[in-house]
């Protein structure tokens, strides 16, 4: 908190705009963007759980989540969850000092991206199969 009044004008290190986008860099940004989006996605979860307490409230929620936009948001939310989760695992691996070589890190980010799509689709298949039971 000790804010210095007179800050010396020192050169700043270059930022994002001077670098050519690379996969690792783009995925780092995507990790932050998905985290930011998921933060607000939790509102949807809270709405869902509270709405489940009564038929009227749940009818409103079902109308939303059953619409194409609601489904798209839910699919996007689950994809972002999976993507952010895999990104987190990637960072945990990097925290140990492993996987930082030129080929390994490229492989990790590619696995992150492809894995997020594959796992999201698999989870939806599992969830939808379980859904088919009753209802």
């Amino acid at each position: 908190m000790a804010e210095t009044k007179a800050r010396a004008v020192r050169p700043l290190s270059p930022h994002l705009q001077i670098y050519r986008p690379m996969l690792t860099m783009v995925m780092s940004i995507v990790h932050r963007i998905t985290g930011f989006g998921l933060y607000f996605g939790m509102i949807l979860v809270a709405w869902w759980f509270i709405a489940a307490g009564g038929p009227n409230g749940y009818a409103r929620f079902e109308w939303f989540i059953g619409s194409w936009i609601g489904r798209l948001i839910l699919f996007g939310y689950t994809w972002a969850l999976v993507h952010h989760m895999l990104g987190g695992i990637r960072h945990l691996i990097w925290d140990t000092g492993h996987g930082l070589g030129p080929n390994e890190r490229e492989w990790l980010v590619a696995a992150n991206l492809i894995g997020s799509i594959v796992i999201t689709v698999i989870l939806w298949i599992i969830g939808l199969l379980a859904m088919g039971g009753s209802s």
Partner: protein
Amino acid sequence: MSSSGTHIRTPLARVRGHGSAKSGTTHFWHQRVTAIAGVPLTIAAIIILIMLLGRNQAAAAQILGSPPIAIIMLLFLASTCIHMRIGMAVIIEDYVHDETAKLALLMANTFFTVVVGLSAAYGILKLSFGL
């Protein structure tokens, strides 16, 4: 602090030797604990949420209120909301440099994560206790 010649000393030199605040790695560590806890909890939460689709309110309430699923969801909410609060604080600290705005946003961040987390947890507990 030294008397007048503060302009000569760099900010780094001024704080050097005073010792750390002893809490530098707390957020780092908590973010990793909640990240690891979040892996199984998130997978479970996604499957449960998709399972709810197409079911009516009574069926959804029964699933969400059943003890194992309610406990998984409460753990998911707790872990995730702590993780969300730290993550958003980092984003705010990275991009908001105005001191007043930064403090206001950091406070709003805490309020948001507590309110959204407790609201969702209340919804689950209500179903689980059949109120």
